[in-house]
């Protein structure tokens, strides 16, 4: 199981467990349908049809890559110790359907209404699957969880712990996260008149996914980035940049998704409904400079001037004081001009970030820990000399302030310089090694500060602001030589797994050191783990994600392409279902 596939499966399952579902297709040979089992309240829906390779790959992923919290996690861990590779395969290896919804009632137990999950599956070998259930029950008992067997409307159910209840309906195994839900399922199986929904996600794909917009407001995604702090240290920049995208999402309508994969490629697509005022027209292309040293790149179409003017609406209350302070501070750097009106509004709504491997220009400045270089690429609305001068002034003022701060702390200063390169002036700064540096010991490792050689350059109407002069120089070359990649859409992200793996490998020792610190791992275990990350990243190949405006919806697409001869995504729409 490659990391990319496990990641996607994890994403799909996480999405299901976090949000809503929909109608189910009718199985020709099933005595019931999921639609029958769960009337109303569905929040999310997913299915793995018969013959899908996910039926083969998903159970091992669950066993080895998915970490569940609470009692279910404990049970799974306990089972992992005793179950063999094929255990979950024998339970979940057939067609499966999963729904998430909200319960309210309390018929069989005193459980309160909450987000609940129901999984219906038809195991390939019913007899062996029943034996596995007995194994699971024994594992539950070993873990010290209570077990209970009971009957409801003639159906025998078994409750394991407080979060898992299961029953056989003929050859179908139904697993629910509480008994109220199971009771609903049993009711549904006995009620042929229960209404079916007319709308359903597309069939005949490896995995189809639907999210009900009614509950999507709780979905941890763009809206969270817009409205809520992300963790304790909310990133206001994330709230601001993603806020306009979140605003376009409609509060009603289905989000429909599909997943397809082959041995070398995997593709996940999700169509999100947008508001009437949402973006509809396809955006113009953005030419992104790329060099052979690029590790990753991201593009976001956002009007920074507009975002900054509307920052009070887009960002959470907690970050407003910080944003106000930032506005004052940055304005000072731009000679007292208005950040929104005099600077950001004069940039076109195209923002790109290129992450590249760091090339050091002098041997004596190669730090012990090499970090990737990052460069922001923006575009001026016009070739305006006054804005260009303002940008250079701000760059120099910032570094002057940084030098003051560093002098107070006894750190080496940055030396500013202007270097001509193919007719372009590179305004750059380099650490003045050996002059008042934090540690001048000849045997001491060079500080990670040496990764920073900030640089500003203007190439025509392109503004490049990077952490490494060498990287900016390469990107200037790429722009002048027209080595660019044309990107459409509202947002785009590309990662090169093999190149990132190379970078990660260079930081092998400090990364392993962090594992020793944070997990108490032994040196051998820590190094093995980092090596495993590197191998999996290398195996993951290339990831590309984009967000594109379509008529009536936003299309989010994620594609993974592993290295190898068969690079095409194999569409299995014509497969069996």
């Amino acid at each position, binding site marked *: 199981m490659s990391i990319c596939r496990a990641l996607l499966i994890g994403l799909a399952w996480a999405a299901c467990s976090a949000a809503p579902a929909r109608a189910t297709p009718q199985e020709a040979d099933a005595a019931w349908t999921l639609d029958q089992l769960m009337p109303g309240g569905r929040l999310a829906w997913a299915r793995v049809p018969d013959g899908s390779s996910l039926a083969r790959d998903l159970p091992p992923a669950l066993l080895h890559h998915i970490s569940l919290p609470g009692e279910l996690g404990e049970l799974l861990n306990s089972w992992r110790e005793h179950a063999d590779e094929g255990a979950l395969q024998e339970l979940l290896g057939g067609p499966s359907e999963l729904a998430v919804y909200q319960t309210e009632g309390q018929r069989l137990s005193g459980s309160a209404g909450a987000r609940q999950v129901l999984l219906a599956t038809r195991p390939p070998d019913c007899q062996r699957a029943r034996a596995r259930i007995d194994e699971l029950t024994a594992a539950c008992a070993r873990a010290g969880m209570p077990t209970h067997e009971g009957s409801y409307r003639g159906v025998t159910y078994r409750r394991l712990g407080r979060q898992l209840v299961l029953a056989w309906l003929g050859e179908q195994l139904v697993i629910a996260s509480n008994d109220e839900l199971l009771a609903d399922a049993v009711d549904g199986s006995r009620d042929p008149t229960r209404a079916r929904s007319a709308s359903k996600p597309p069939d005949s794909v490896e995995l189809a996914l639907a999210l009900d917009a009614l509950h999507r407001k709780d979905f941890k995604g763009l809206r969270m980035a817009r409205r809520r702090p992300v963790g304790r240290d909310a990133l206001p920049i994330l709230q601001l940049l993603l806020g306009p995208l979140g605003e376009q999402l409609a509060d009603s309508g289905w989000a429909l998704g599909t997943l397809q994969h082959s041995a070398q490629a995997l593709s996940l697509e999700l169509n999100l409904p947008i508001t009437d005022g949402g973006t509809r027209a396809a955006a113009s292309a953005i030419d992104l400079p790329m060099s052979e040293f690029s590790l990753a790149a991201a593009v976001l179409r956002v009007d920074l001037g507009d975002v900054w003017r509307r920052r009070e609406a887009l960002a959470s209350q907690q970050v407003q004081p910080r944003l106000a302070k930032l506005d004052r501070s940055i304005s000072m750097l731009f000679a007292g001009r208005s950040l929104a009106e005099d600077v950001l509004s004069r940039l076109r709504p195209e923002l790109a970030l290129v992450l590249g491997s760091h090339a050091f220009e002098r041997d004596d400045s190669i730090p012990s820990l090499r970090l990737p270089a990052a460069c922001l690429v923006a575009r001026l609305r016009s070739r305006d000399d006054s804005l260009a001068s303002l940008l250079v002034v701000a760059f120099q003022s910032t570094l002057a302030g940084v030098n003051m701060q560093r002098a107070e702390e006894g750190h080496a200063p940055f030396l500013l310089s202007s270097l001509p390169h193919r007719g372009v002036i590179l305004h750059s700064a380099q650490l003045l090694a050996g002059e008042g540096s934090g540690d001048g010991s000849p045997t001491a490792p060079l500080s990670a500060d040496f990764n920073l050689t900030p640089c500003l350059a203007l190439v025509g109407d392109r503004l490049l602001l990077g952490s490494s002069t060498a990287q900016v120089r390469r990107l200037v070359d790429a722009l002048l030589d027209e080595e660019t990649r044309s990107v459409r859409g509202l947002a785009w992200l590309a990662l090169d797994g093999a190149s990132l793996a190379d970078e990660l490998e260079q930081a092998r020792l400090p990364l392993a050191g962090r594992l020793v610190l944070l997990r*108490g791992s032994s*040196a051998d275990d820590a190094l093995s783990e980092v090596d495993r990350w590197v191998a999996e990243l290398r195996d993951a190949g290339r990831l590309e994600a984009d967000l594109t405006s379509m008529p009536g919806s936003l299309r989010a697409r994620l594609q993974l392409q592993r290295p190898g001869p068969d690079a095409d995504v194999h569409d299995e729409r014509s497969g069996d279902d």
Partner: protein
Amino acid sequence: MPASSDQLLPYRPGIDGPFGRTQANHLLRRSSFGGTAAERDALLDQGLPAAVERLTATPEPSGAFADELQLLDALTPLEDAQLARAAWVARMLHDPHPFRELLTLFWHGHFATSIEKVGRVRLMQRQVAMLRERGPGSLRALLSAVAHDPAMIIWLDGNANRRHHPNENFARELFELFTLGEGQYAEADVLEAARAFSGWHESGGRFRFAAGEHDDGHKQVLGASGTLDGEDVIDAALAHPACGEHVGSALFAYLVRPDPGPELRRSLGALYRESDYDTRSFCRALLQSRAFFAPESRLALVRSPVALAVGSVRSLGISVDSRALALAMADMGQSLLAPPSVKGWDGGGAWLNTATLLARANLAVALAQAGGPLGVTPSGDERPLQRVRDELLDLLVDGAVPGWVSERLVSEANSHAGLLAAILSLPEVQYA
């Protein structure tokens, strides 16, 4: 109570008392933060002299621990104070010879220097490394290294100590805190000593002798006179009778019990001087002294936050997130690399107040909770609760809790985690 000098004589197992599990637990807690039952049993097999010899040995790191240190060193360029603290905590947790770190921690409090003023993480790390290397050896060499240490020079304004404008900060603390104690020197000694250290500067993270700023005139310090420099002042301080008493008593209060009386202080001073100020020899004498095994020394020290956290982890034999543990120590009042003042941490009863007791209870819960805030690895301990209780109470407090408490620990706890949290929160566990 025996005479003071007798209290420092070697404890004779079988004559002065037994050397059983209780004594071995006591020795393990005081010399190694704490340890497991297996480590305790190994001490019993060795016998007292060999056990103390082994516990206080500080050989060059080797094997898996050396590999681990190599990885931790790779983090140094990141210049992150939290990582530096965590790396030190990791050494305390994983060093097979933890006496090295126990003593380093003592000297860190004795020569208290804070990152808050020094500002440079790397310099603080180098100071701790110096204390680690020099700590077990000669006090003279240690004092000299401290006087040359860049972090100490920044901390006590050494760069402001110039020929025509002597700065007294280092000289004053050298006498008052580092060697003699209050009342053992005159103000004139401080002024003259400051002149001797003039020109001992820091530049670019290194010691630099600024010859032009050094006052090479005649000076008189603590009875010594001549064109004294810093090294001569250190020799004069070591020759003063109060030096052995001051530093020896501080080590006694750290390893044995607080507040040795005046008579015992004199005996300690004599013992330290007789060892030629060799700290390891002195500590070995303390750890196998009759005073060490006397009943009034058992559970007589309030465990510092570092000792409590590191000792608990070592005794439980679990793996934790060192960075989170360092933060927990700070919550309990001991932030490594940032002692509150030049006097270091007050220690003793000052470790315990309403805020820090809550933090200690939180630590207990976190250490018992697999996968919780400290990232504790599940122990997989399936032994009966009663057995776990008995072993931990034995290791941590020599079983010295009232019977009804011991019974309720098991009757009230419904899991291993609950039991561990309850035990680690006991008032008795706050002492070593």
